[in-house]
């Protein structure tokens, strides 16, 4: 298969970006999207035409959350429940034009080309996305039974890989799904309840402070999440946010 690629190029955070057009040929259907970009880069290096296209990637099996490209207007491309590295060229037709952009969100400034800075997510976690335990001195793991359905719900929320697709998909660049997932994961568990109200307060305040937008309930985040994190997590976070305003736990 042959493709025409329109790729966002930007030397660094200060430089002005633009689209550049490239062509790749003889790509097989089994080839992954990132491998297709590898092939392009090999071409660019061999022909010394331009600097290879920079894009973040690491595990290439959909779990590290490092990769993230806006492909033809969709975060992680035209398939559900996958990261960019799990997108395969069989999802495209021969001769397709493909537009490739970085995540577009103010709290995620561009570093180079398709690489963005997502340290804002780390800062939100540092504000309370953990249970305060120090190493050692904890009870036996089976001391507190946790009903299976609660553990399963916590696991569903904990599956978030922090890729940022939810923010990129949102017209307001809201991080509610990311924060809601972490709040839900921890606050659902008995171990996390002790700090539940502080957690939701501190994480939401930090999220706002970092410039993420508000939620207007369009749920583009849920539709594009590679781990299919549910919007109910946002609702749960909102309930707890209101709960913390009155100083008591409303989670039921």
């Amino acid at each position: 298969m042959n493709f025409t690629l329109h790729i966002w190029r930007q030397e660094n955070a200060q430089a002005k970006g633009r689209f550049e057009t490239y062509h790749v040929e003889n790509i097989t259907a089994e080839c992954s999207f990132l491998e297709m970009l590898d092939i392009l880069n090999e071409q660019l290096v061999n022909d010394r035409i331009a600097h290879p296209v920079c894009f973040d990637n690491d595990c290439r099996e959909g779990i590290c959350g490092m990769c993230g490209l806006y492909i033809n207007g969709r975060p992680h491309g035209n398939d559900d429940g996958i990261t960019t590295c799990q997108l395969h060229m069989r999802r495209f037709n021969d001769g397709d034009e493909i537009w490739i952009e970085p995540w577009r969100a103010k709290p995620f400034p561009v570093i180079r080309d398709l690489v963005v800075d997502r340290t804002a997510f780390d800062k939100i976690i540092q504000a309370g996305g953990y249970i305060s335990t120090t190493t050692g001195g904890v009870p036996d793991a089976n001391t507190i039974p946790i009903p299976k359905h609660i553990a399963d719900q916590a696991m569903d929320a904990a599956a978030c890989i922090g890729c940022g697709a939810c923010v990129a998909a949102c017209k307001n660049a809201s991080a509610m799904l990311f924060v809601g997932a972490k709040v839900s994961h921890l606050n659902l568990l008995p171990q996390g309840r002790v700090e539940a109200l502080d957690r939701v307060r501190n994480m939401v305040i930090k999220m706002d402070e970092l410039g993420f937008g508000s939620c207007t309930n369009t749920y583009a985040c849920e539709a594009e999440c590679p781990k299919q994190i549910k919007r109910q997590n946002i609702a749960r976070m909102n309930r707890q946010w209101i709960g913390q305003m009155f100083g008591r736990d409303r989670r039921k």
Partner: protein
Amino acid sequence: MNLDSKIPEGPLSEKWTNYKASQKLVNPANKRKIDIIVVGTGLAGASAAASLGALGFNVDIFCIQDSPRRAHSIAAQGGINAAKNYQNDGDSVERLFRDTIKGGDYRAREANVYRLAEVSGNIIDQCVAQGVPFARDYGGLLDNRSFGGAQVSRTFYARGQTGQQLLLGAYGALSREIARGSVHLHERREMMELVIVDGRARGIIARNLVTGALERYAAHAVVVATGGYGNVYYLSTNAMNSNGSAAWICHKKGAAFANPCYVQIHPTCIPVHGDYQSKLTLMSESLRNDGRIWVPKKKEDAEAIRAHKLKPTDIAEEDRDYYLERRYPAFGNLVPRDVASRAAKERCDAGYGVGSTGLAVYLDFADAIQRLGRDVVEQKYGNLFQMYQKIVDTDPYEEPMMIYPAVHYTMGGLWVDYELQTTIPGLFAAGEANFSDHGANRLGASALMQGLADGYFVLPYTMQNYLADQIYEGKISPDAPEFEQAEQAVRQRVNSLFDVGRHTSAPHSVDHFHKALGKIMWEYVGMARSAESLNTAMERVKELEKQFWNEVYIPGTADEFNPDLEKGYRLADYFELARLIITDAQHREESCGGHFRIEHQTEDGETLRDDENFMYVAAWEYQGYDKPETMTKEPLDYEHIKIAKRNYK
């Protein structure tokens, strides 16, 4: 070289207790004055930094990714072992210890492995307290499953993403310490040099991967927790950025490197499909709990499948060869990884392989789906099945998965003593980066256990024994001449890579060379090795390395975000490391665990150890570029365990 493993006195089960009772400690007021550098934010690095920070030390932690949460520990799917005996199936510290020693083919140090088994239970307690959502049964208690090389169910898991959840636990603990100010995070930074002052590790030179700037960091001790070197094979289950450079840099500065030839090849990965392929995806070992591995019994069936004339579902039950169940009735599909990998290779080499390349075997869930129902199978392995379907485009609920072995983990690594200290005072190594616990083969679900054991429960103790004497040193200055020299050396190394490209008439990309190196290593230093194959490998690697230093072209400059440059300097290290792997494999004229020399096998194709001559750790010492390394033996004295033939029949 003098290798002192510092094994404490006393009976095996009391060594760790005795050590802790008599070791030196640093008092709380002095902890504040001690700086520690941790390189790597995987399970070992993040847990070490979080624990040391919580104790009161000043910690600087470094990762090459944009966030600590990306470290490759996240990719571990199946689970983490612990001797909790929650299932009442006969597990104990002693049994986990024995399984690990036997799984490692009697090439690991007894005292280290016993300690690992001893603290395994604490890890689970710690993770649950952090909110790791382990799988639970309907009574709300923790669930377990089985993994290779064990006859008990001791593996704790969080769906198919146990590594991710454990790392998020450690990352949470780390984030808390960052918020408290005890740990300073430096993301997108790569360790480029180890700085040694008066014979002690005193800091690192790091490259800021965004700006290209070289930065100096000084400390009283350095921990390297940077994972393994499996990517020397190019195609592996490791992440693209996983690399062996930090460990190799330490080796070049004097840290001994142990057992480099012990490389684990994982039996259940999605087979290779094309030349442009960048990595291999693992299908968790946990699948072998319910999946049955087979190939056709008749060659003509295998040929028809390869030619797409038959489908696996067309092969009748009696025409299928469940070769693991046939060869190893006691452990069946749950034999250790090295055994399962070799068995798959044996069948494919004999002409029974499937898939269009003939280099694949089936992993079949039809029985499990019939027995348990599709829902249960989906609940247990849903995300793995989805992952498979996305990559291969066939439905594993309908048709068996195709799998083939791939490079996965490296048991070898920096030599460390009982305190996890390398041969350089003040330099510690944790997790996959060290060699300590898995001998010649690691059991499934033990990497997570070891990473967290090292970080949560070993280093926070043993490092204090070293640091207690360091309180008199005062602040270590990054302005010392040693730092200046180290920085210059890095600058020179980076520039020399660009110089090649400027002068060559036949430029090639870094990936071009890396792929070529990987092919040589897989072909000649892979699942089966011989004196002849190793000699060929050495010649070809040297040739390729020379070509690399004449023809590699790296675009751009050193002073910008430049992934090709990163790949370039990592590959330069891989060439040297590849040569050491080959040298070690040449010298070890026996078969053990992941190291299979075809000259040394039993009549039925099993590994044939030579305990009389090779029951030791081979620790290699760097002598300068392209000079043969010298090897020192650390004998393995088994006092507690009875050495036996490793038998899974």
